[in-house]
């Protein structure tokens, strides 16, 4: 169990290998594969079984080690130049490369410690600069737009609009909404004023039917007051309105 905790500090199979090489004080160029493989397998066996992702990477390395171990037992292979090939060469190269970056990582960490004594500023753009709007460059704005193009676009629009008219529905007749004729009402009210000289608004409304008619009548009264044909008085809020004609009798 204690091993498991210890294992977690290794970043990967190469890290573990380097650790073993270091621990055994072995020359990286002359790794005793049999011994290292054995130790390596010991670690693997102690590993958490559930972390498959990591374990699989460690297992791949274990397989590589065993492969190298086998090759070491066989007669040495000879390459094209007639030199004996060391089955460990590829692994050594990988280990060296990894070791180099591990070393550089420490170097960088040291640099990071020393570097961050500077402080910086947040961007802070004055409002005057932010709100600045550049003047419009009409040459760029218009591009190749000209009068002919403007005309063309408008005509295309008109044509499009004609196309939109529904040839059948557009010929249907319309049912006009019933409305109060303002002119008729004006004539009626004016005649009423001439006839009665002085009267109350309620009195005037006696012969009006709908709400719309009442509103129109009220508007006519307001208009007559504006042009000075009548004077109106109201004694209290919401009280009746007294209307007096200014127009001299004919």
């Amino acid at each position: 169990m204690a091993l498991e905790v210890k294992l977690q500090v290794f970043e990967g199979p190469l890290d573990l290998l380097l650790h073993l090489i270091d621990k055994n004080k072995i020359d990286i160029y002359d790794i005793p594969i049999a011994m290292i493989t054995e130790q390596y397998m010991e670690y693997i066996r102690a590993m958490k079984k559930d972390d498959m992702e990591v374990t699989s990477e460690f297992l791949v390395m274990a397989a590589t080690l065993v492969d190298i171990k086998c090759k070491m037992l066989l007669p040495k292979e000879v390459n094209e130049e007639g030199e004996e090939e060391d089955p460990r060469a590829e692994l050594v190269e990988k280990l060296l490369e990894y070791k180099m970056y591990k070393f550089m990582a420490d170097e960088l960490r040291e640099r990071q410690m020393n570097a961050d004594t500077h402080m910086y500023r947040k961007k802070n753009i004055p409002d005057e600069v932010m709100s600045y709007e550049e003047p419009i460059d009409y040459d760029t704005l218009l591009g190749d737009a000209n009068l002919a193009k403007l005309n063309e676009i408008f005509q295309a629009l008109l044509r499009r609009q004609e196309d939109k008219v529904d040839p059948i529905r557009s010929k249907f007749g319309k049912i006009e909404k019933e409305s109060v004729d303002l002119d008729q009402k004006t004539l009626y009210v004016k005649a009423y004023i001439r006839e009665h000289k002085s009267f109350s608004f309620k009195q005037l409304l006696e012969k009006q039917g709908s709400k719309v008619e009442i509103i129109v009548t009220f508007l006519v009264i307001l208009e007559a007051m504006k042009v000075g044909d009548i004077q109106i008085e109201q004694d209290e809020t919401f009280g009746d309105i007294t209307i007096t004609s200014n127009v001299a009798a004919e």
Partner: protein
Amino acid sequence: MTKEEGAAAIEAILFTMGDSVTVAALCNALDQDLKDVRAQIKYLKEKYEKADSGIGLIELEDSIQLCTKSEMYEYLIKVAKTPKKITLTDALMETLSIIAYKQPITRLDVERIRGVNSDHAVNRLVEFNLVQELGRLDAPGRPLLFGTTEQFLRSFGVKSLEELPSLDAVRVEEFKQEAEQEINVKLDI
């Protein structure tokens, strides 16, 4: 701590904080008394007054703050504001053509002709000073009326609206069609 060193420390603090910093906080950070800090601030202020400084110092009540000198704004604009290359979109050209030929015209009428809400387009054209408000229509809601501007005439190289290419070509075509139809009708009888 020399006056120069104090000024440098104050500068660094103001630079980092961005916002205003109270003089009391500066005294505390520098471990100096008010008199010394005041002298250092004065030194800093004089340093910033020179032509080789783009930064200035503003004093607010009991605080001070660094700011960019306003003479530098023209350079800041060039860095902070990327020049926009604005060109008239199809929607804007369409709207402009309607306003040019149908002016004075309300937003609603433009919309009716284009078939889409054109408020944004009209507003943009007003921003570009190609279109302007001409007044209000004497109708319910008193809607604004729009027409083209002098800038419009200048940009399109015409002296007056009469010089706009006439729509007659279309009109003529329409009349011709109508006339032909009438003839057909008569022939049918």
